[in-house]
Every structure is written in C-alpha cells, then in structure tokens.
C-alpha cells in the first residue's frame, strides 16, 4: 500500500504537513452547511479503500512522527498515562484489539504471531520485536496499555461499566483538545461531559450513555468530532495551556491559511471481551486551512459552518480570538455555489 512515513514535528518549528493523498483522505466532518449537535454515531464498519475508515485502526503517513511526539509528552509528564488497578484485564483486551487489527490491516509493517499465550509482536516502522506471555505483565517492558498505545496513533481511554454508568478508569491521552486524563480519571460519563453547553439540555448525553451501555461485542461504533487548533500541535492539554494558549492571539489575516488548523477526531468505541470494559479511541487528524481549501467544496462548506456557529459553541471550542479572521479568509473561497451532499471532497 506504499505508506511512506514522514519526518515532521508538532511543536517548535512545526514542520507537519499533509501530502496531497493525505489531504484527499482527510475526514472532513461536516455533511451540511450548518453545524448542529447530534450523537451522530454509526457502525464502525469497513469504509472505502484509502479512506480513514478502511481499517478499524488507521495508520497513516504521520505514524512515526506522532509516536515520537507521544514519547516526548510522556517523558515530560508521565501522568498522561494512568490506569487504576482494576483495569488490568481491560489493558490486555486492548493489546489484543490493537495488535490483531494493525497486523491484519498492515502486514508489511506489523506482524503478530500467537501460540496460545506465547505472543510475538514485530513493529517494523518503530523497530520493535518482542516476545511476551499474554496476560503476564512482567513479560512486557511496559504495562500493557502503555506498551501498545505508544505504538498506535490516537488517544485511548478505557471505560469500566458499573452502576449503569461508564467510568474513565484508565487511559493514555497526549493529543487532546484541551481536556485532561489526570483530571477526568475516575469520573463517570455524565461527570466528564459536565461542561459541554447546549448538549445536556438537548438530552444528547442521556441518549448516548444509554446507547453505549448496550454496546455489543463485535459491533464497534464511531463518530467524528471537531474543533480548531492554532499551529499543528497535537498536545493541546490544559497542563500545557501556557505553551499553546497564546498561539490564538497570533492569527492575522495574512497567516490564517498556515496557522489555523481544522482538528478532527475520529472517535471509536469497542466493547472488550474479557473485561466487559469499553475502549474509547480518539484519533486526531490535523489539516491547515490552506490545505483544506484545495477542495472547493470543503472550503465553501467550512466557511458557511463557521459563519453560522452559535456564540456558545465559538466560545466553548475556543475559537473566539480568531473566528472573525478565519471566516473572513474563508469567504474568499465561497462563491455561493451549492455544496454537494456527504463529507467527501468533490
């Protein structure tokens, strides 16, 4: 499939960019010209070849660079990866899910050989070749969740199910849009969704929780979520707000196209077999607006979505400081023509 892993950065000199093929497969999240909250959950089934939905776990040209960035975040702040003791079975479930999925989808890069509990894992892009006993933590160089998620793009949280609720009792979160695992760990579904405006009133979270409590084995689901980020930073954590918060004041009419990025999360949820826990994966895709507007449809539609966004959401998503410049810049790409249905580019 010819994946060529790029050397690039998500901090300091910000060399991150998308190749033309990567732009084409960007998961643009808007299927109409105005944005409205919805649960928008769909089955996480196989999508079109080449799309981010082709495989359950997507690996792309940014893989090696993202894993390098994750290692830097963890080195500076080990609390980005935490797991309460009762989640160890769920950690092993996650090892199985990620290894089997990656090895099946990308056999030229990852190989998993299983002989009962004796497993052999090869990760060629990162130069890893380990044999271990499944279920025996002492046979891995790191705890199981940290071991495998240092080798997989996207954040992961493991949700324990009890008392008719889901509890965020483990996770690795280094590419977040301004939330913190260290703050949320041990909270339940309603607690960690506490601050979202408008959605509670609409009953969105009650419906979503009920749906997820009945999530079934073999039937994963997904949804897209979005926000915007200044500069291609993966780590926009509250802990590091002092490093990225002021970026928002640096947007000018001249630099919008390079500085302002649409940040899309492909969120997927799987029921795990041994633990009955749920894994919630949050895979972040970044695209600068100058790349995004190479699709005329996306340019028109994003302009209309941002222009009509309710003030509460502009504020909640942290767009307030640069929203006017961004809408103004995008307006140059909106000729008023109708946009076609669906999220793909024309």
């Amino acid at each position, binding site marked *: 499939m010819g994946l060529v892993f790029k050397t690039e950065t998500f901090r300091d000199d910000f060399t991150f960019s998308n190749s033309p093929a990567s732009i084409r497969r960007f998961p643009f999240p808007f299927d109409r010209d105005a944005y409205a909250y919805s649960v928008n959950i769909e089955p996480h089934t196989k999508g079109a070849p080449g799309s981010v939905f082709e495989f359950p776990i997507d690996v792309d040209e940014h893989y090696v660079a993202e894993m390098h960035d994750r290692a830097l975040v963890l080195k500076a702040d080990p609390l980005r990866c935490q797991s309460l003791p009762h989640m160890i*079975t769920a950690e092993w479930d996650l090892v199985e899910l990620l290894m089997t999925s990656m090895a099946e989808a990308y056999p030229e890069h990852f190989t998993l050989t299983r002989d009962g509990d004796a497993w052999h894992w090869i990760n060629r892009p990162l130069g890893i070749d380990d044999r271990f006993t499944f279920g025996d933590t002492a046979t891995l160089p790191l705890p199981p969740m940290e071991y495998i998620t240092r080798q997989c793009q996207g954040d992961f949280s493991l949700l324990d199910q009890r008392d008719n609720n889901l509890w965020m009792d483990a996770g690795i979160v280094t590419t977040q849009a301004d939330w913190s695992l260290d703050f949320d760990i041990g909270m339940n579904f309603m607690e960690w969704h506490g601050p979202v405006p408008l959605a509670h009133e609409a009953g969105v979270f009650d419906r979503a929780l*009920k749906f997820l409590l*009945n999530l*079934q084995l*073999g*039937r994963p689901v997904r949804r897209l979520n979005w926000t915007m980020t200044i500069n291609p930073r993966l780590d926009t954590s509250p802990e590091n707000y002092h490093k990225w918060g002021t970026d928002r004041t640096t947007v000018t009419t001249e630099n919008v196209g390079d500085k302002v990025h649409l940040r899309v999360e492909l969120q997927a949820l799987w029921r795990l*077999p*041994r633990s*009955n826990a749920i894994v919630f994966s949050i895979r972040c895709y970044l695209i600068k607006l100058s790349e995004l507007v190479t699709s005329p449809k996306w340019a028109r539609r994003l302009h209309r979505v941002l222009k009509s966004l309710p003030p509460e959401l502009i504020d909640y998503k942290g767009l307030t400081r640069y929203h006017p410049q961004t809408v103004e810049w995008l307006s140059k790409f909106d000729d008023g023509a109708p946009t076609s249905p669906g999220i793909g580019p024309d």
Partner: protein
Amino acid sequence: MSGGAELRVKIAEIEPVATDVRRFRFVAADGGALPLFSGGAHVVVGMEAGDRRIRNAYSLMGSPFDESSYQVSVLKTRDSRGGSVFLHERVAVGDTLVISHPVNLFPVDRRARKHLFIAGGIGITPFLAMAEQLSEEGARFELHYAMRARDCGAYAEEAARLYGGRVHLYCSAEGRRLPVDALLANQPLGTHLYVCGPERMIEGVIGAARDAGWPEENLHAERFQAPPAGEPFRARLARSGISIDVGPHQSLLEALEAAGIDAPYLCRGGACGQCETAIVSCDGTLVHNDHYLTPEERAGAAKIMTCVSRLAGRELVLDL
C-alpha cells in the same frame, strides 16, 4: 438496533445434568473460534419452532477463556412458552442454531476486594463462568448455592470439586437453608454481592443486604425472566399504521417480530432498556414486568419495555 451480531452454532453435546436440566454445548458452525466473553454474559438463542420464532436468553456457563465452545443450561419449566420445551424435546446433536454475540448485563465489579455469589437453582449458571474467570485471575470469591434437592442441584458437585472450600451448598430437602443474615453480616468491607435465582430469593437477599447496611453500589442481581403470560390485547403502531394482536402467551416484542417489524431488543428479560418504546395512548392498564423503568416512569405511562411488559385492556398505541 435490534438484537446483535449473530453467530451460527452447531450443537456439539446435550447432556442431562439434573432433574429437568440439560447442558448444551455449542461450537461455531464454521468450525472457527467463538468470541471470548466475560463471566455473567448471556447469549440469546433463536429457535424456529414451527411458525414461531422464539428467542430466549441463557447465561454462558463455561470458561470465558474457552474459544472452542459455549455452554448453556436449560431448565424445562412447567409453564414454558415453548423455548425450553423446544430445546429439551426438538433439537439434537448436530443441529444448527443462530445465537447472539455474548452480552454482559451481570458483570463482576472488578474493584471488589471480595465477591460473594448467592445462587438459587438454575441461577447457578452465570456464577460458574464468573468463578472460573476470578479463579484464573486470582481474585477472592465465595459461592453459596441453594437448591431444593440434590437431584435439582445441577453443577453442585462440579463446583465443589473445582473450587473446594470456596463453595457452600444448601439443600432444603436435607434441612439446610441459606443463612442469609449471617452471611451478609460477616463480610469484609469492599465485598460485592451477586444474586441470581428465583425472584423471591433475589428480593429477599437484596432486601436483607440493604437492611444490613450494604451500599447499593455493592449489590448486583441478575433478574432475567421469561415474559409473563396475560390477557390478549391489540397493539396499534401509530407511525406505520399497522395493528397486531398480542396473544396470551406471546410477548409484545414477539408479536412485533411476527408482524415483520425489526424492533429493538437485547436481553429479552426486562433488564437492559434497549426495547424501550414510547406509548402514544393506551386503553387499559399497563402491566410493567421489567426491572428497568423507574417508579416515576411507570406512573407516567409514556414508555413500555416490549420484551416483558403488556397491557391489561383493549388497545395500546405505540410510537412505532
């Protein structure tokens, strides 16, 4: 979304294990591996009984780590609505069946310092898988198993052999009764209680635990039940404009399915909430047999769980 992803299985073994109880072992029809599950999970078994499609939920009782087969136990009940009789009398080794993926509505709480299992009769089945799982993981548990007579106590000897001193048997025909109060009064902090058995037993044990001051979060019960019979009634579907008759031994959900409607369900036992359906109007009294709706929701008469609840009256109009 109705039901779940389905698995085709072949019956590999049928074995009588106690009076009116048979153990069935299923293997994947294609010879492959079955999905792993967690202790306390059930599958819904579909049965083509003549012109009726019956679906019953049964707890998985083998090892959760065994991908080669699933085991369920079926008690032949006197007031069977067809499912248990079908499995006792009309299937044979080699037949294929369609079952759901495992769903767990009765999981262990992994934060527990100790797990206290109380089983009555056929309610033993989920605990066999839980005990196997916890035993493998090195967790602390005790199983207390009450039965009417030795020949009703499927798996008593098997459990005692596997888990030794952690298993306690109470046979009422021999005058031994489950010492509920003493058991509940002498547990370490952090113990979680799990009960499965006849409804009266569940109510008694959970009530006793509350009286003894146990926190609600530490109490767990599996309350599967077959849809109770009742008077026939008519259901009208407001959106699709269809009217259907619900027979005395048929559940509302089964009547919907018989009419070709892809109605939502998961546990078919009034526990999970998946089949919740909005009521437009009802001419009669709702008979709520579920364990899902709150007393306020029942009083509001705006929702019904189609898998076990019904109408005592003439016509129920649903938002379907």
